């Protein structure tokens, strides 16, 4: 086989620096780390795997055996004019054929089973691992890049697994053929494999070129695909700006690059065809001359010569196959490295081993000396102290970047504090199970995200057991009921991707309803009404009065009108709380709040 030693010792590339994913492509065709990591997935299928391998052995041996049987039959029965012997060996051959059929079928079928099981487990393991990862990871890595690891990289392995066993079978039959040839005649066998080292040398040189050529292809196709994806996602801008012709020209350029890269690689892989043919020709010619002479000298049977000729032709088939699968090996190894790199990313927010579920809470929240850094030494929150009593509505105001959203994100534990602590009913958030917190605290996010499922399923979301009545009640509470009823299929209307058949305001209302359905003790609203017109907003606010009763609420809003009635308003600037109090108190005491307030009214945010 080709000199695969060159690719080893590369396993170190599996670490992750800052939680960002690398897209390196080493071009190696064997990576020990990847194979080692894949091994446990096969281990659980050990029984099936063993049977499958045994069957492959049976199948391969029958294939190796047949030319030998042909030679043996010719020499011992046909040339000896032994008809009964011929019939007898016929029975043996039938047995071999049946073994071939059974072995082949079972080996392929079991292998299909095993590889699908392995892929399923890989996919679901990756999916589950991703669910464990914390928000910072998703901040750093674009969805598209994570997706390609689960879809394309696992897909590469899907193509790879059957190929590995075919290759394994090829190698086995190679060994088998050599063994049988040596058993038949050592001298002729040596002659037949004389050219093997030449081929090995050529392959070693070839793979140096191939490695680069195929890396180039993969780079080119990734450029093509990302261009296409951008154009699909940004199609509305493209059309608004009349960019179609120019974009096509630019796309054609990268598309052509990809074509060129492929044609270059094709030349490289096609050159192996005549090479292998020529070397086979030499070997076959040598077998004819030397083997033929041996038959003439009676030191070899004619049947054995037939067998040799058949073997030599089959001998180089595996090598031809290997070259065709070369790039698949590279892709699979690169894919494997990328898959396990993702699997090795450690979640940043993890439950302690002894974390307890949070019992039913009253809703008292305390931030105690809370500091937060996303990037080391850049403080987003500086020593924040805040006490929210059960049932209070507290509003956070301040400029973009003041740390309001960070305050909210910490409360729902998207992140953990860098120092200090946050308690709910006296319990440190880090000492309780995250899932039990999410059951009692709900958050409405700045950017409403909806799933492409029905409206009612979106509102229910995790609470699949909710009744339709409950769904309608919360929808009415946020003023979404009327427009939902006007949708084509009412609550059963299936949304487009990201809720694309709704306006952003409508999406926000539904995400609001979703948060309410959970009936949380603590409600966090992060600019939940930013995209909603005033009329609707006022309706929501009226509804909120009943909704927020007996709930603790943390509200972030830029429109001060939204939060004037809060029990407490907290003014933030550059990660610090600089003032707090009621609206009236702040107007008296806080110049910054007064300025914000005036700006708001000089420049009223609402219609």
């Amino acid at each position, binding site marked *: 086989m080709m000199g695969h030693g060159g690719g080893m010792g590369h396993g170190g590339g599996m670490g992750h620096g800052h939680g960002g994913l690398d897209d390196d492509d080493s071009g190696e065709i064997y990576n020990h780390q990847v194979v080692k990591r894949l091994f446990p997935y096969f281990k659980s299928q050990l029984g099936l795997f063993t049977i499958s391998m045994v069957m492959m052995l049976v199948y391969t041996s029958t294939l190796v055996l*047949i030319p030998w049987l042909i030679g043996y039959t010719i020499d011992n029965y*046909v*040339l000896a*004019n032994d008809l009964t012997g*011929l019939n007898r060996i016929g029975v043996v*051959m039938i047995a*071999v054929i049946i073994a*071939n*059929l059974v072995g*082949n079928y079972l080996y392929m079928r079991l292998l299909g089973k095993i590889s*699908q099981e392995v892929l*399923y487990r890989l996919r*679901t393991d990756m*999916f589950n691992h*991703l*669910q464990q990862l914390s*928000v910072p990871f*998703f901040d750093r890595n674009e*969805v*598209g*890049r*994570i*997706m390609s690891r689960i*879809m*394309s990289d696992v897909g590469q392995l*899907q193509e790879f697994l059957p190929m590995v066993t075919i290759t394994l079978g090829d190698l086995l039959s190679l060994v088998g053929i050599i063994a049988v040839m040596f058993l038949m005649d050592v001298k002729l066998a040596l002659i037949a494999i004389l050219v093997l080292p030449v081929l090995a040398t050529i392959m070693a040189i070839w793979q140096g070129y191939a490695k680069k050529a195929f890396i180039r292809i993969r780079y080119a196709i990734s450029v*093509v695909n990302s261009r296409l994806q951008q*154009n*699909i996602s940004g199609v509305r*801008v493209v059309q608004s700006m*009349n*960019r179609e012709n*120019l974009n096509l020209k630019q796309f054609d350029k990268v*598309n052509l690059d990809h*074509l060129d890269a492929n*044609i270059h690689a094709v030349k490289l892989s*096609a050159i192996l*065809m005549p090479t292998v043919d*020529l070397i086979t020709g030499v070997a*076959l*010619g040598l077998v*004819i001359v030397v083997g033929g002479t041996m038959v003439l000298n009676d030191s070899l049977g*004619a049947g054995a010569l037939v067998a040799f*000729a058949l073997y030599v032709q089959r001998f180089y088939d595996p090598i031809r196959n290997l070259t065709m699968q070369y790039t698949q090996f590279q892709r699979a190894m690169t894919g494997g490295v990328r898959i396990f790199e993702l699997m090795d990313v450690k979640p940043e927010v993890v439950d302690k081993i002894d974390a307890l579920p949070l019992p039913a809470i009253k809703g008292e929240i305390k931030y105690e000396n809370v500091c937060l850094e996303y990037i080391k030494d850049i403080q987003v929150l500086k020593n924040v102290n805040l006490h929210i009593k059960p049932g209070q509505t507290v509003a956070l105001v301040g400029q973009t970047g003041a740390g309001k959203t960070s305050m909210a994100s910490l409360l729902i534990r998207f992140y953990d504090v860098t120092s200090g602590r946050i308690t709910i009913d006296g319990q440190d958030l880090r000492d309780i199970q*995250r899932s039990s917190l*999410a059951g009692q605290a709900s958050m409405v*996010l700045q*950017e409403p*995200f909806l*799933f492409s499922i029905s409206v009612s399923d979106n509102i229910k*979301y995790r609470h699949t057991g909710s009744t339709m009545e409950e769904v309608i009640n919360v929808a009415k509470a946020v003023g979404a009921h009327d427009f939902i009823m006007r949708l084509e299929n009412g609550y059963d209307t299936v949304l487009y991707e990201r809720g694309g058949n709704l306006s952003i305001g409508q999406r926000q209302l539904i995400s609001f309803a979703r948060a309410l359905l959970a009936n949380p003790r603590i409600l966090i609203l992060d600019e939940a009404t*930013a*995209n909603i*017109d*005033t009329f609707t907003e006022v309706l929501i606010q009226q509804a909120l009065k009943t909704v927020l009763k007996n709930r603790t609420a943390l509200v972030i809003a*830029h429109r001060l009108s939204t939060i004037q009635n809060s029990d407490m308003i907290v003014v933030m600037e550059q990660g610090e709380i600089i003032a707090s109090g009621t609206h009236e108190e702040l107007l008296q005491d806080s110049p910054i709040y007064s300025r914000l307030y005036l*700006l708001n009214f000089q*420049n*009223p945010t609402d*219609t």
Partner: protein
Amino acid sequence: MHVLWRIVKRASKYKLELTFAYTTILGVTAASMLIPRFLGTTIDEVLSSGSQRELLMLGLAVLAANALRGAFAYWQQYLGETIGQKVAYDLRNEFYDHLQRMSFGFHDKQQTGNLMSKATTDMEGIRMFVQMGLIRAAFTVLLFLGVGTAMVLLDWQLALISLLFTPVIAWRSGQTMVQMRRVWLLVQTELGLMTTALQENLSGQRVVKAFAAEKHEQSRFYYHADNVSRYSYHAAIYQASNSSLVTFFYVSITVLILWAGGRQVIEGTLSHGELAQFIFYLGILTQPVRMIAWVVNSFSRGYGSGQRLFATLDAVSPVQNMPDAVDLLRVKGHVQFESVSFAYDGTTPVLSNIDIDAKPSKVIALVGAPGSGKSTLVHLIPRFYDATSGTVRIDGHDVRDVTTDSLRRNIGIVQQDVFLFTSNIRDNIAYGKINASEDEIINASKIAQLHDFIKAMPDGYNTWVGERGTTLSGGQRQRLAIARTVLLDPPILILDDSTASVDTETEHHIREALQHVMKGRTTFVIAHRLSTVLSADLILVFNNGEIVQRGTHQELIELPGHYQDIYNLQFRPEMTDVTNSQLGSTANKLANEPITEKDHGP
């Protein structure tokens, strides 16, 4: 087979390459067929006490035949792959261009993940079909025919035995092809659904985390992942049974020939060399037999992939240029809606009977609840959708009578959710005007109040945004969108001035930017800000897809109705009694604002 035929037609564009490819296939086949002949002769020679000289000749002949085959095989391989790649290249360009010219109505219903899987997996399926199904398959068939003919010529009775199995192999393969086609389609569909589930899960991670819905999310992904692996397994079973049966038949034939041929040799009706030739002929079929399974697979996959890809390519955009469409020159900006109605699905009206007459350079504010039809209305002007009934006119031209290119060149749009391309800030601003000078770009970003911010970045205008680039805040994105629209200098402007994620200071900046931008252009603005509404020349109040009120702020505020409700709801509640004095002065200011602005107005 219609779908496969369409792929063939695309490949037939490369006539020269195809002709050459098929010629080389003939060459490979002919050269391949020489080898068993020489080998058979060798056996006859050695058994009839031939000379070493003759052996040497035969050895050289085999070498020559192999070399010849190698030369042809090079071109066959080269051309096969090249044609496949070229067909894929054409299709990629066509797919790309088709998608970017489909109207919004089409894209609303598409899942990006699914389109991408068509562009990757299905594209590969089609390429493989060209390479395997169109060229490799021809070689396989030709070699079978050649070997069959050679064997019939050698001994027709013996040949008949071996040919007996051919129809069985053909029938099995045909059947497998049909089964596989069905399964492949299922696999592809489920893969698409799994991709969608995954994409939504990842995009919505904050929601997933906020609701601790990790377990809930599992069920959807697991369901499709399970289906994918189950159907793939079905495909594997079909392939296993087909390929093991084909090998079985092939091996059976070899054994039968050996047995029946051996009998004939013993009985003296066949020479040793002829028997050997038979065996060698079958020997060169080993590789093609193995290929049959792949060829069959490539047909099934090509069919499924072709079906999916062509379904997208065949979709006709509802918004099309008329055959006699004329170019719209730079307009003055007179926009008229005449009894316009619209329904996305053709039945549920989103807009009914809209009449608007927007004179050049006027600012039209659209006000109303989410989903009342404001966004839909403005999307009709650049023909992102076509009205279901009624007419939209610009400077008197029906928008359907002019080319969409020239129409859209007259219109600038700032959307609510701003899409940025993976590139630097400069290229994003110059997106619609690629040859804009540095001065123009800086000027546009100054108008959009973005220049100072960009200057403050270490890389300035070269700062990379989008995927793997700097993340811009909502307000910054919005101002960038304003800048790139300003650069186009359109006579008609459509704005969605959402206040999402923008703090008071920033909003102040954006507001100033907008005031600048709207000057001298007919502007349709979906208004979320009072200031915008106050300065509008005409306010349209929407409710359930109808315009329920229209007029200026002064006119509407006097009339009882929707607008008054909105206005009062905003300012009356509790606030009045809280900060009486302050509100009083603020309200005075507000009342004055529109008047002063009007004075400056066009």
